[in-house]
């Protein structure tokens, strides 16, 4: 069963994507679209293939068949390091910060794709003449200020509470000024207050930016998403507004059928 929503402007979409690893079908004809300027959710029980969808979109995994389209054009041979330049930014499950770099350095890295000077020129450039270096630094600090973590700039990730690390990771994703943000479980491991704040933050990015959210915390998903896609066992089983998805029998069955040990899913049921 395939769902085709009236997507006026899918900024990023997968078309009939199938992926298998060693005979195991991970994704089966998955077509999902992310309308421009929306917060779109991608949910499903564990092992449904949500992260694989991200991996296909960012070129980590090559699908057996199907295609990814971005701004109406097919993406092929995408080099991962080109993504930020194309306006696609992704956060990873967990934190994904470099433990030996300060928060500021971590965020500055996010702007790497926008550094134009060649490696030799950059390597030879002395710090006091390096205007580009300063520019990157200012952008990083602006992003950190937006996320409220500028005061942590000189600390190492290991010295910060987990929710603060998550914010730094978000700042790194924002610093390249992306059109699309792919957020992989941004609320994982953070408390209720931080989650509310995160929800407000995500809403504040649209419609200037477009967000795809993979998240287990249903309260957050239901609160911030305009559109939700539901995956189960590699297939799209439902799509629609939070209200529609909440009441969809197929979704209820998928979550009820799971040997559930995570409280989060009860919100759906």
């Amino acid at each position: 069963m395939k769902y085709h929503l009236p997507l006026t402007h899918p900024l990023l979409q997968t078309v009939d994507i199938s992926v298998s690893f060693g005979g195991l079908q991970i994704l089966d004809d998955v077509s999902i679209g992310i309308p421009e300027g929306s917060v779109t959710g991608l949910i499903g029980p564990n092992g449904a293939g949500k992260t694989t969808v991200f991996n296909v979109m960012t070129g980590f995994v090559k699908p057996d068949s199907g295609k990814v389209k971005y701004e109406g054009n097919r993406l092929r041979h995408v080099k991962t390091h080109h993504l930020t330049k194309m306006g696609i930014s992704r956060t990873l499950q967990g934190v994904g910060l470099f433990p030996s770099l300060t928060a500021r350095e971590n965020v500055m890295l996010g702007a790497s794709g926008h550094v134009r000077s060649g490696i030799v020129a950059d390597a030879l450039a002395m710090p006091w003449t390096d205007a580009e270096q300063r520019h990157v630094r200012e952008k990083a600090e602006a992003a950190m200020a937006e996320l409220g973590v500028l005061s942590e700039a000189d600390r190492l990730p290991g010295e910060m509470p987990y929710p603060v690390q998550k914010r730094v990771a978000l700042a790194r994703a924002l610093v390249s000024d992306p059109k699309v943000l792919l957020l992989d479980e941004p609320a994982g491991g953070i408390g209720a207050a931080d989650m509310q704040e995160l929800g407000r933050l995500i809403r504040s990015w649209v419609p200037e930016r477009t967000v795809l959210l993979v998240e287990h915390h249903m309260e957050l998903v239901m609160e911030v998403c305009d559109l939700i896609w539901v995956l189960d066992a590699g297939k799209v089983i439902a799509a629609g507004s939070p209200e529609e998805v909440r009441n969809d029998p197929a979704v209820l069955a998928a979550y009820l059928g799971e040997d559930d040990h995570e409280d989060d899913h009860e919100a759906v049921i």
Partner: protein
Amino acid sequence: MIDFIDYLLGGISSGAIIALMALALVLVWRSTRVVNFAQLGQAMFTTYIALTVRELTGSWFLGLIIAMAAGLIVGVIVHFLVIRPVKRLDTSGAIIATFGVLIALEALAAMVWGGDPEAFPPPINNSGYEAFGRIWPFSPYDLLVLASVVVLVLALSVVFTRTNVGLAMRASAFNPEVARLSGVRVNRMLVLGWAIAGLVGAVAGVLVAPLSTLSPTSFDIFLVFAFTAAVIGGLDSLVGAVAFGIGTGLVIALVSGYSDSSNAPLVALVLLVLNLLFKPEGVFSHHKARAV
């Protein structure tokens, strides 16, 4: 006591050079997770180039500069020609392949310049300073070596901590996938790591040659010392490479002074074994432990 001071003074410049060699090994390890056993073969080769340039032009300094450029180029060539293709198949295969590069370079040098040891005289006076009525085992040349190493290490630390490319190199070394997601062109950083390592090794070669002689295999022994220093320092720590490079130089000087210089490699290997037994991840490493 005065012996002890003499030995230490005598070990400073060779320690500084070992620090450079260890630094080169660490730079390559950080970029491609390969121990480049050909590093000092590359340095030997570029030192021969320096010698040739020096004989043709009479300028030690020009020889050094050309050797540095050659070191950069040789590093890039080895990376593209040998490491990248082999590493695609197998990482440990790439490490073995560096031995092949070492042997090939030694054979090539013997073919081009002959296998006999050649003198590589120091550019300035290498006899010890006189003070307090005695001659100390520290010469103007030792001072030049020390100054060169300090300048190079400072320049590298500026590149690594104050420039975008240095930041990108550190990130690529730690987690290539996340670095790529952040827009870092990781493959370029790997090449750059090999290039800088080649340059650093070339400087080490030109500086160390006057302390003995130059032959296709005369740097081999330094591989033992540099490898020991790099591993004890943590193999991915630039600070560790410098600190333990100098430390290894001093230990070797003491061992050579109090016993015989032929015992130095043995002592280095003992240090290496002790390190692997008690602190296998190295002293300055970011990682918790390493499989050895």
